[in-house]
């Protein structure tokens, strides 16, 4: 009723899900990111032993198409990412000429460029 775990739920969580000192992996963390093109205070990151750094690129082989969803569709950001990954895959083996450039260049009008 107060929004917190009941004693029974807490015990279940503690037993099945909680990561702690006795576990090899004590926690997970996303790698910290900072802007490289802006002046930004970068807090020095001490790598904490036992904290597993998640990888954003380990499964990129799977990320060039949308995988099945259940009740919620993929976000626009997700579709954007997938489309760029597909584009990269298509261009990967191009040599010399760039197909994107060849397609888009006829539309360039210099008065559009500041």
């Amino acid at each position, binding site marked *: 009723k107060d929004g917190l775990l009941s004693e029974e739920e807490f015990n279940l969580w503690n037993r099945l899900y909680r990561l702690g000192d006795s576990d090899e992996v004590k926690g997970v963390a996303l790698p910290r990111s*900072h*802007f490289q093109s*802006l*002046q*930004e*205070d970068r807090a020095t990151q001490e790598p904490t032993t036992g904290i597993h750094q998640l990888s954003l690129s380990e499964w990129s082989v799977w990320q060039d198409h949308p995988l099945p969803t259940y009740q919620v569709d993929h976000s*626009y*950001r997700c579709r*954007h990412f997938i*489309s*760029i990954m597909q*584009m*990269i895959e298509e*261009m*990967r083996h*191009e040599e010399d*000429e*760039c197909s*994107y*450039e060849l397609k*888009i*260049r*006829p*539309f*360039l*009008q210099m008065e*559009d*460029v*500041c």
Partner: protein
Amino acid sequence: EFSHRQRLKAAVHYTVGCLCQEVELDKQMHFSKQTIAAISEVTFRQCENFAKDLEMFARHAKRSTISTEDVKLLARRSNSLLKYITKKNEEIAQ
């Protein structure tokens, strides 16, 4: 509409090429044409995303004109980006 969109894309692509050229000179590195194309496409699509968000922000505030406040809202997730945009806005206003 298709032609207009492709014109915009071409302008973005050209500009991205120029910006990358500046970085090349600065860092003594080279960008492949395909990398420039990919950065260009990312930028164009991100601009579309920004435009949709900006429209929603303005509409939420019951305005029919997108304002600089809407743009600042776009940058809300990053303190450094928000600071940068706010500073730029003040410079432009002056």
